[in-house]
């Protein structure tokens, strides 16, 4: 007979307690990652110092963090919108790719347009392409009851291959010596940098879009309907909410936001379309959204944290030859431990009284 018994908390754990659980989960996953580093023959302590220093130790590193946090933030924001309605959109990666493709189409077709017309056109095309890519699984789900998790995921694979098809074929730069990439965008198709930093104006997009999403859930009737529908589908239907249309809306918005991330990445970071932009931001976004409990502001913090992790792991790769896949171990471990930690916000252990 165990000496502990599990009891439901009378009141959910407060902010302080939740932070403790979160910190414990992060510490546990870093420890676990350290064990695997040691197994791979790398000293965990020196790795930790390289990781932290590489991610947050210099101005250049911090700017790199912000640069990577921008696409992660936008994808996670989109993922969170869908998760609010308990629609499992695992397809941010594919919607990101479609967004990049849509923006690139506009950039390559109308290179002569002035910046003030071309950038909005690229954004619109990115949102349309990403949004439609997100809408397909939503329609299949509501009309044919197919499982959206698998459809969105399969569409990720298809989207990445579609991107490959374009950059190896029709859109290939004839002067690229066989490398799969489109020609460089014209100047008016490139999102500029902020002042003297390497950070692009995508950061401002994040702030505006994050604020819009927050206001949507806080102030609009539809936003409230999404929250209600996510809480209880059956009750929402009884209350006369147009559930099908809500699903279409959140998936289209979700895809459009991920698509916007693809636009920023193609336009500002690489100035062209090439397969190397697909580095799994769409999957990291799921970790970020869940860590942040789907809140737009918290997503910002979590996006910076996970972007820092990516930058740090890149340094590990350069300095200590740790394979890049190491980042996946930490991301997966963080998500698993945070999920398990969620238990302590609703339950507590008490000592079993002796009979």
């Amino acid at each position, binding site marked *: 007979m165990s000496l502990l018994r599990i009891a439901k908390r009378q009141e959910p754990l407060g902010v302080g307690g939740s932070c403790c659980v979160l910190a414990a989960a992060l510490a546990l996953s870093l420890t676990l990652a350290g064990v695997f580093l040691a197994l791979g023959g790398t000293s965990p302590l020196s790795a930790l110092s390289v990781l932290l220093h590489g991610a947050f130790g210099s101005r250049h590193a911090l700017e790199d963090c912000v640069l990577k946090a921008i696409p992660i933030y936008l994808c996670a924001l989109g993922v969170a919108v869908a998760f609010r309605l308990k629609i499992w959109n695992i397809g941010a990666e594919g919607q990101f790719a479609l967004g990049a493709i849509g923006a690139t189409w506009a950039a390559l077709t109308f290179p002569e347009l002035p910046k003030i017309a071309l950038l909005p056109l690229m954004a619109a095309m990115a949102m349309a392409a990403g949004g439609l890519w997100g809408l397909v699984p939503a329609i299949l789900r509501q009309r044919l009851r197919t499982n959206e998790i*698998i459809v969105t995921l399969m569409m990720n694979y298809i989207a990445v291959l579609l991107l490959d098809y374009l950059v190896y074929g029709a859109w290939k730069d004839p002067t690229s010596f066989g490398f799969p990439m489109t020609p460089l965008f014209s100047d008016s198709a490139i999102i500029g940098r902020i002042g003297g930093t390497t950070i692009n104006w995508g950061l401002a997009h994040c702030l505006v879009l994050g604020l819009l999403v927050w206001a949507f859930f806080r102030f609009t009737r539809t936003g409230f309907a999404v929250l209600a529908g996510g809480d209880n589908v059956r009750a929402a239907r009884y209350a006369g909410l147009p559930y099908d249309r809500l699903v279409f809306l959140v998936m289209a918005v979700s895809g459009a936001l991920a698509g916007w991330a693809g636009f920023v990445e193609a336009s500002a970071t690489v100035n062209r379309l090439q397969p190397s932009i697909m580095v799994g931001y769409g999957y990291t976004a*799921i970790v970020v959204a869940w860590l942040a409990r789907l809140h737009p502001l918290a997503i910002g913090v979590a996006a910076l944290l996970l972007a820092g992790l990516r930058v740090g792991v890149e340094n590990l790769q350069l300095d200590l030859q740790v*394979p890049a896949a190491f980042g996946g171990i930490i991301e997966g*471990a963080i*998500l*698993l431990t945070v*999920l398990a930690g*969620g*238990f302590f916000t609703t339950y507590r252990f008490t000592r079993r009284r002796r009979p």
Partner: protein
Amino acid sequence: MSAEIVIALLAATVQSGTPILFATLGEILSEKSGVLNLGVEGVMILGALVGFVVARHSGNPLLGFVAAGLVGSAATAVHGAVCLWFQGNQVVSGLALTIFGVGLANYLGTAYIGTPAPGFSPVPLPGLSELPVIGTIFFNHDPLVYVSYLVPPLLWLFLHATRYGLGLRAAGEYPGAAVAAGLDVVAYRWLGVVGGGFFMGLGGAYLSLAYTHLWTSNLTAGRGWIAVALVIFAFWRPGRAVFGAYLFGGIMALQLRLQASGAQVPSSILLMLPYALTVFVLVLSSWRKGSSDEPAALGVNVAPVD
């Protein structure tokens, strides 16, 4: 196309369908107990790596195969702990397991890329392999394929003809009633999760030990996700899973042949085939959803009781 080419293609179909078959059967076992496991992709790739590494260092591929199954069980036990002990969301936990497993396998496997290891080679079954057509398609393979023939009927028998199978299905169908009947629902779910993980690990090991005979990063290439989709297509029945797995095996075999024959279709379009087929197959199976054996409490956690 001549008959010989078709028969060779069908034989290749069985071989490339086998890893998916193992994984699909594992996922059926897990989901029948009520636990949705989206970590198949991560578990499979860990199995593929461990099978390869153990075979390489021990020189015994069978040892690698079994070790891969055990590692599959260990990996899914993480999912079990998060969902069955800590009440974590099954969808997110499975995803996390996939991210973790793929990361871990690619990380630990870097040193093994391009190295050789002993694997399984075809052993024609005496007698049966002499049969015309059927013999070549089904009985001229490595021993693991023959093992995979035995698993679906055994799994069906376990689920439908033993009391443990009945208890496991009850845990996935109506855990409340199962508890009231005095069953240890959490134990049955553990059995489903860990047992399912064993087969997922075997499926991964089949890839590295009998199919490709080498280790590369991202070896599974979405096969785990296809297995999750096939469970729906199979209506949670082991027999239909065989059909589904060979359907995908066929598409993958065909895609390889087309690529090798230098067809005028770009390879990225050919590579899309299995993923597009997965979506198509899901749409198809949604039509007859009424006749499926989907467990009623799939994905629903059982709250702890004092």
